[in-house]
């Protein structure tokens, strides 16, 4: 089969790989129809995630058709169209039994701090991802769901991570009616988080980024006020000014490990890999929140230490909330919001590329060319 493979930092290619096979009785093999490139895939692409091995196939956002099922699979059959949450999870461990699907303890031998994720290095379990023609999906009775007939395929693939994560990020903020919510990052997750903040009753939603075309999308798609941090000497002061010097009730870090805005943090975090990412957005979030406020973190960081301003977080009495998203918990409500017309996920898709062109797709997304916001990978053009 054809699959994207990692060849080292900033280098990937498509090559022939052996077909995935049933390795566990509850496995399924999925023929991928559409995948996506996620902002967090760039951390792997840039060589920031420890234990990213040559030959690994990325891709944790994908949908497809069931090709084969293991002998114990009860809920899926060959030919079903399915959407697969980015979490690999067993459904029965201590954490899964409590709804913490992203923290499953039965799927990742390489680390206890993070659960299993498709195509996200051996640090998250060593599972190949969906930027390929076929992918192995463990625990087929637990994670995947049949795509409803009414659902657009592009909306389905966006539900496997980006939309669910943005919505989850807004929930972690514990937004109450009238709150002022600041979202750092106008990428897919930030746009969805801003949109979701309104559903939860926010009184003001402010999005901060440095890419003007993404801020334009935040204004039109997410009805948000916007600030380009590159236009201000100090974006934290600007956030204080615009909130009448109070600070925001809720701040969402939807950027994660590759935040811009401080050259030293960028170089030590993303170029030299001496931190688990450059925590610029997180530090801004801590400083932009009001005392007693909440900071929600859904931007992804690596497992190594990062230079985070915990002193300010302590002194301000902030609540810090974060996790990888337990995707499937979000789906029933998000399905309803899409059906009601409150959310139109694929409005943010800017590029659709064939699998064979994925190296250029990664560069496009990494270098932010051509007003790129979200890129879908069409594995099966039919």
């Amino acid at each position, binding site marked *: 089969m054809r699959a994207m493979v990692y*060849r*080292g930092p*900033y*280098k990937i*290619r498509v090559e022939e790989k052996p077909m995935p096979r049933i*390795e*566990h009785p509850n496995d399924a093999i999925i023929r991928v129809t559409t995948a996506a490139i996620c902002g967090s895939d760039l951390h792997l692409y840039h*060589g920031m995630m*420890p234990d990213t091995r*040559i030959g*690994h196939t990325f891709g944790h956002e994908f949908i497809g058709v069931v090709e084969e099922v293991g002998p*114990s699979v009860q*809920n899926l059959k060959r030919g079903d169209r399915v959407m697969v949450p980015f979490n*690999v999870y067993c459904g*029965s461990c201590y954490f*899964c*039994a*409590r*709804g913490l*699907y992203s923290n499953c303890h039965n*799927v*990742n*031998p390489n680390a*206890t701090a993070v659960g*299993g994720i498709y195509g996200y290095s*051996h*640090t998250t379990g*060593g599972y*190949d991802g969906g930027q390929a023609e076929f992918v192995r999906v463990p625990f087929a009775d*637990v994670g995947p769901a049949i795509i409803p007939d009414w659902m657009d395929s592009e909306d389905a693939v966006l539900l496997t991570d980006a939309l669910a994560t943005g*919505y*989850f990020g807004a*929930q972690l903020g514990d937004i109450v009616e*009238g709150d*002022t919510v600041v979202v750092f990052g106008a990428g897919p997750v930030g746009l969805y988080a801003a949109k979701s903040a*309104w*559903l*939860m*009753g926010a009184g*003001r939603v402010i999005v901060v980024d*440095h*890419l003007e075309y993404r801020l334009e999308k935040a204004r039109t798609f997410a009805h948000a006020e916007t600030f380009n941090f*590159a236009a201000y000497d100090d974006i934290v002061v600007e956030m204080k000014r615009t*909130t*009448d*010097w*109070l600070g925001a009730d809720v701040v969402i870090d939807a950027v994660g490990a590759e935040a811009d805005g401080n*050259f030293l943090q960028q*170089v030590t975090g993303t170029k030299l890999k001496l931190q688990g990412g450059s925590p610029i957005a997180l530090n801004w979030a801590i400083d932009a929140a009001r005392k007693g406020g909440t900071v929600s973190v859904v931007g992804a960081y690596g*497992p190594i230490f990062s230079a985070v301003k915990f002193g300010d977080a302590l002194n301000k009495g902030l609540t810090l909330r974060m996790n990888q998203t337990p995707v499937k918990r979000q789906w029933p*409500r998000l399905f309803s919001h899409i059906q009601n*017309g*409150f959310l139109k996920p694929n409005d943010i898709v800017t590029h659709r590329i064939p699998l064979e062109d994925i*190296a250029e797709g990664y*560069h*496009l997304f990494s*270098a*932010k*060319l051509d*007003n790129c916001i979200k890129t879908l990978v069409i594995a099966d053009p039919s």
Partner: protein
Amino acid sequence: MSTTPSTPYVANKPKDIPSPEALRARIPGWGADLDPKDRPSYPREVYDPAGTGAHWDYPEEQQSGREGRERSIEHGQLTPVFGTSAPLHGVSGRIRRYAYRYSEGRAAHWLILIGADRVDAWGAHLRSLVSLRPDNPVTETGVLAEGRLHGIASRLGKRRADVNHQWLDPVIVGGPWVVATAGAVLAARVVRRRARR
């Protein structure tokens, strides 16, 4: 003359928040999830093992790839299911296995793994040079997209904050190749010089 104090210096909440009616009229779905207790991730933990689709108390253990599978020493056992994407191999594999002697709490664990990643990449590049499909830094970096997808126009005059470090990317990609080539040339010269003596 004293001005009205800003919000945090008095008890009242900010006054410039639009009314719910105004927001509902402007934002599709505003307030659909207004009740914090009626949101999918509230409460954080909901004990419902029967609701996940799992029909086992403990999953059957995957057999393929079990032998010698590396694991975190913070795990009490090898997990019943795991990925088999790229098993340990060669020099990088030995380095990685060494890294797994350290817990996730130790910087050594992660820094050694990152070192192993680089060794793995260099080994793969060298092996590719004697294969039918050598690595091609032009196609594999996707840099040709710069020409087709407005590389200059996407950056010029856009006040982008990432332009100040993007110049380092080619150094990161090409630097090791330049150093390795220079080293190989130097070594070849030394060998040739000694052979002439």
